[in-house]
């Protein structure tokens, strides 16, 4: 067995998986609270990448150092994506809070198409090159051919984000309120929790994570266009389903699992069908184990 190749695939899968996990968290949190597949979440990720590109472009012209650009771009992307996530919820989902299941989902699809076309009109429908913002780390030199510094930043960065999120949800008052709202929104409201605010915050947190994911992956891959959100979105949603939608550790596990599975499948089987693996996993899981790897199946009350 070619161990070098195996490690390369493992590390590559880890990088992919971390990004999937970051986006999956947004899906899972929103689903946990309002039971909506936020179709437009992938577009938030795409907008994060675009915002990052614009900031980097402007600062690049004025000659800022790469690391400063990375930090500023990340901050701006997070701010903007949060704002987009917040506004999107207020416009497209809040008025449909009591409208059944189909309406918000269609609204979400509309929102997703809207944001894609907005970016086409405001920017371009072509691929844009994305500058490499992540500096080379010397200590990674020996393994740089299989695990570069951008991989390193992605894996470490997303791990930190997820750890922070877990602590936030577990130990802060706001986190407790979020968990309560997810369990039973009506009851939480009766107990004085402002559910609308919790929902907004959920969207903001999910969008910030997507923004970071978008920025990091764009810098890693080197080009972006308006369509990147769709594929990333579906894959991240797959990750959320694998881990059991609504569960935060599940989303992380699902993301890593999907990343590794994809990496090995493309490495050992065929790279032509790269995206088919993800879709097949999604379909198979939804059909045979819709509650995910760890979840329990709910019983419908008659």
């Amino acid at each position: 067995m070619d161990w070098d190749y195996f490690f390369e695939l493992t590390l590559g899968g880890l990088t992919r998986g971390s990004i999937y996990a970051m986006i999956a968290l947004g899906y899972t949190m929103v689903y946990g609270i309002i039971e909506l597949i936020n179709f437009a979440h992938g577009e938030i990720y795409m907008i994060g990448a675009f915002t990052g590109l614009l900031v980097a472009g402007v600062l690049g012209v004025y000659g800022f150092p790469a690391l400063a650009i990375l930090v500023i771009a990340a901050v701006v992307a997070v701010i903007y994506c949060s704002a987009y996530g917040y506004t999107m919820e207020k416009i497209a989902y809040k008025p449909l809070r009591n409208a059944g299941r189909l309406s918000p989902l269609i609204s979400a699809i509309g929102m997703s198409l809207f944001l894609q076309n907005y970016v086409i009109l405001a920017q371009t429908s072509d691929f844009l090159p994305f500058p490499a913002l992540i500096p080379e780390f010397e200590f990674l030199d020996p393994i740089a051919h299989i695990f570069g510094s951008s991989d390193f930043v992605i894996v470490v960065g997303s791990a930190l984000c997820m750890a922070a999120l877990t602590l936030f949800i577990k130990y802060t008052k706001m986190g407790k309120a979020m968990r309560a709202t997810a369990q039973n929104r009506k009851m939480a409201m009766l107990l004085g929790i402002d559910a609308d605010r919790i929902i907004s915050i959920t969207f903001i947190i999910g969008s910030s994570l997507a923004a970071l994911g978008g920025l990091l992956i764009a810098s890693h891959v080197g080009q972006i266009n308006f369509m990147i959100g769709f594929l990333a979105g579906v894959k991240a949603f797959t990750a959320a389903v694998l881990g059991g939608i609504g569960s935060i550790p599940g989303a992380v596990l699902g993301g890593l699992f999907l990343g590794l599975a994809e990496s090995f499948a493309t490495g050992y089987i065929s790279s032509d069908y790269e995206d088919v693996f993800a879709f097949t996993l999604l379909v198979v899981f939804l059909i045979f184990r819709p509650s995910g790897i760890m979840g329990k199946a709910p019983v419908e009350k008659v």
Partner: protein
Amino acid sequence: MQELTKSLKVSLWFMFLTFPLMVVRVNTIEHTVEWRWMNMVYMAVGSFALSFVWRWALRRKEMAKAAPERPRNAFTERLGSDKRFTVSVYGGLFALFALMPWIVSTYQTNIFISFMLYVILGLGLNIIVGVAGLLFLGHAAFYGIGAYTYALLNHYYGIGFWTALPIGGVVAALAGVVLAFPVLRLRGDYLAIVTLGFGEIVRLVLENWSDLTGGPSGVSNISRPDLFGHHLSVAGANTYVYYIVLVMAIVTIIAVQRLKDSRIGRALQALREDEIACQAMGIDRVNVKLMAFGLGTAWAGFAGVIFAAKTTFINPASFTFFESAIILSIVVLGGMGSNLGVILGSAFLVLMPEYLRAFSEYRMILFAMAMVLMMIFRPQGLIAPKGRKYIINDPDLAATEGGKA
């Protein structure tokens, strides 16, 4: 005054929100930055004005909730009940469409072909989404299955259009039933995602199975339909395809209407309303769901065969999720469950951008916006599905209703 400050805040918020994407444009190769400040001004004015409309519309919606009875659309109302009116409207439309290729240019004939293809696609999807209430996001894949059925049969075996048309429909319907089997237990949003995934799998397979399908470059030189064994010129074939589509569209309209009003159609609607009650009332849920998918996707298959015959060249890029989303938006905008609505929806989507050129660039963004707005303010679509009229044999009832009138 309060209204003004509110709108001002909204306007400022949207200026902030759209600032980077709308104003800044960078060229990362030449390292130049372009600032488009005018866009910000448009945005500010636009959002300021729209925020008034938005709040007004929300208030109206609240008011409508208090008094739910809304006046029915007089035109559609008359269309069903007033027989002479109905016949003259439909007759006039039919005459207009029958003469169309002789009035307008080939280019415009093509637009009308594509309009009617969307009508067929939309009506098929309407059975699944509108009548049976199953959110289906993979319709384009079945369109593709129909198109590829004809393209490949023609390419490898030289099979003609008229033989392939029923085969394409049947293959798509079977594929729909095959997809339906595993997703029977899924509800609402999960079903949507699985059908999306399935649609993408179909497209990716078409794209990657190069030996059979020609990969991303697709299949070319597909035969146009023959007229009783005669080959037609390109323009002649185009007119011929126009009439085929016209007949097919009319057949679809009648067939879908009849299905909707039948025992099967009622079972589909019951399935949409309540699955458990549906079973408890003696309806086989599995059967009905399979029927919904099969009946819906068959039309996509027919449309696909015609599409392949019209363009003589197809590739997987025509059958993406984007296409499914367009068909879905036709159904949603037109009115879920309403056939007339679907026809209007297709007209808006295909004909408007052609005849209002300025509008074409913004077509998709307006459609996307309309999808969101429709869900919020008019979930039943442009034209709400019309209830069927039943003949009741009850002299007492006739007496009381006569007394009322």
